[in-house]
């Protein structure tokens, strides 16, 4: 393989016989923003640390800009890293922190000062150079950590759950800030998160991981709309799953509680196979106007979320969740009332029951 600016090939990591990462293959293009997304403990940090050089792979190679860096020391890789804990040096001012990488590179004080001023502008904290980390808010500290990582003009930027210690509002703010800066500098970036919304909104591509394995690599659109495994389907976004039986594989029809549901395309399983029919909440409609498929059930819960209203409708043993866009003239469904749900065949897809 070649092509990628950062390439991981057959990377594997064991800790005392316990497998943390296995069969990791990835090519990241220059300037690309790639996220590693997955639940806690699935091996995201371990993979990132192998790229940074803090862990050595048990097998496989890591290549950066055409060079094999699998066993290169962290301080020889010229990679910028941002930690979840910010990891700012408490004994140094903001300027001291940002300039640290240049200081150990023996750059002149004048050059250092210029670069620090530049970065303080970039992170919109021009007056904070003389402050100490403990005088800053969490969001400000993480901006400084980002500036510190960028000051050395790294070939690659790594971020390990940089926002998970912050409040929801700051998190969203800083998220777009990170994306803006990344675009401005065109720096190749790997972003680790367990927050699917973060990954979807930030990334050019997402690597969904589970139990040390790559589940799927793709754009946010692909990952959300065309999940390859049931894990990806369930982990990314909210998903409705109905246990059905294949009724007609060729025309794409399944049976659910004696009713027929049409799915948009032919089914890969034989007639009579138990399968899962999947469908996103935003594809479902209350009433008859949502498409050719119809189901009816009793409203379980109504949750007002602001922009959308989330309604759960019980269908015997199963239930379906749907999102309605809020508007001031909306009539909220009431709990217990009987409702018809409709949805188009092309919104549905089928996977093997596991």
């Amino acid at each position, binding site marked *: 393989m070649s092509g990628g600016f950062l390439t991981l090939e057959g990377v594997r990591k064991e800790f005392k016989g316990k497998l943390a990462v296995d069969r990791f293959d990835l090519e990241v293009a220059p300037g690309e923003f790639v996220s590693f997304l997955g639940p806690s403990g699935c091996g995201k940090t371990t993979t990132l640390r192998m790229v940074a050089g803090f862990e050595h792979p048990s097998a496989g190679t890591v290549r950066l800009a055409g060079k094999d860096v699998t066993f290169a020391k962290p301080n020889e890789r010229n990679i910028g*890293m941002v*930690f979840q804990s910010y*990891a700012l*040096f408490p004994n140094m001012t903001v300027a001291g922190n940002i300039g640290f990488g240049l200081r150990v590179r023996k750059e002149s004080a004048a050059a250092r000062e210029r670069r620090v001023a530049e970065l303080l502008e970039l992170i919109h904290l021009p007056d904070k150079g003389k402050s100490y980390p403990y005088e800053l808010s969490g969001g400000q500290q993480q901006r400084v950590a980002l500036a510190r990582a960028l000051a050395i003009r790294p070939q690659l930027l790594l971020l390990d759950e940089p926002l998970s210690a912050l409040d929801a509002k700051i998190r969203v703010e800083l998220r777009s800030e990170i994306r803006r800066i990344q675009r401005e500098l065109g720096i190749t970036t790997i972003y680790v998160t367990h927050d699917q919304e973060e990954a979807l909104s930030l990334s050019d591509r997402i690597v969904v991981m589970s139990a040390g394995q790559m589940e799927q690599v793709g754009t946010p659109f692909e990952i959300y709309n065309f999940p390859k495994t049931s894990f990806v389907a369930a982990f990314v976004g909210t998903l409705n799953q109905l246990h059905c039986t294949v009724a007609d594989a060729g025309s794409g029809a399944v049976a659910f509680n004696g009713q027929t549901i049409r799915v948009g395309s032919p089914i890969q399983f034989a007639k009579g196979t138990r399968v899962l029919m999947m469908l996103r909440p935003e594809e479902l409609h209350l009433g008859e106007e949502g498409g050719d498929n119809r189901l009816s059930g009793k409203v379980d819960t109504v949750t007002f979320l602001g922009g959308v209203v989330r309604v759960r409708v019980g269908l015997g043993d199963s239930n379906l969740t749907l999102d309605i866009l809020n508007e001031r003239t909306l009539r909220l469904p009431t709990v217990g009332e009987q409702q018809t749900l409709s949805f188009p065949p092309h919104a549905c897809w089928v996977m093997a029951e596991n």
Partner: protein
Amino acid sequence: MGGAQRPPQRRLGQWFGVLPFFVFSSLFLIGPTLILAYRSFEAPQGGLTLDNYRQLTSELVLNAYGMSVRISLTTALVGGLFGFLLAWAVSMGGLPRPFRSITTTFSGVASNFAGVPLAAAFIFTLGRIGLVTALFKVFGIDLYETGFSLYSFLGLSLVYLYFQIPLMVLVVLPALDGLKRDWREAAENLGATPGQYWRYVALPVLLPSILGTMILLFGNSFGAHATAYALTGGLFTLGTLLIGQQISGDVLHNPGLGYAVAMGMVMIMALSILIYSLLQRRSERWLG
């Protein structure tokens, strides 16, 4: 309106909680210090005088202070250095796990070992006919021929180090634990060598704790009395021993001077505690 009255009551309740502490400290700390201050102005024949304070600059007193300061500085520096190295070795030097708990348990005991038992232990081992002295003799080395004496500056320093090193270990270990792995990795990631990490990050972060603890060690030696007395029988001129001689001795008896010497030592101790707490506050802010 009722709300306006409640806060003072609550405050009163809070004060009530610390009352035992205040009673205790006035009984055993503030009270005695005040009495000490008053009596340091008393003349031997009765009446008040500044004479005792004038005598603080006499050779006898200056020598005693000097010796106290020297032995305290020496044992604080040496104890601080070795204690730090030991703490580093058990916390991040890659020693097997059990070493750490053994070291902390031992340090907890040893740092409180003082007075007659400690002196006796050293006399039994390193005294003229002590066990270790005898062992050296077996190998043809006569310690006391080489100029060593347990009852000298060096000997007393050794004895003090027995509690100084463990005390340093106990106080510095938490500070070392407070060094975050992320700091080291961030430094490395930014291109720093391990040496640069220690020089620019770890040592500066630890410095307030290290200095603060060394001041604590200084005070610890400076105020020690029983160990030195038990070991040297009061013949060695340390500040604390001089106080004893002046207050309860029969040869050099001038209680007023003794109290004045004590007041001087209280001042030095107070100063070192002040510096210690300032440094401690800084390192808490960093390591918090």
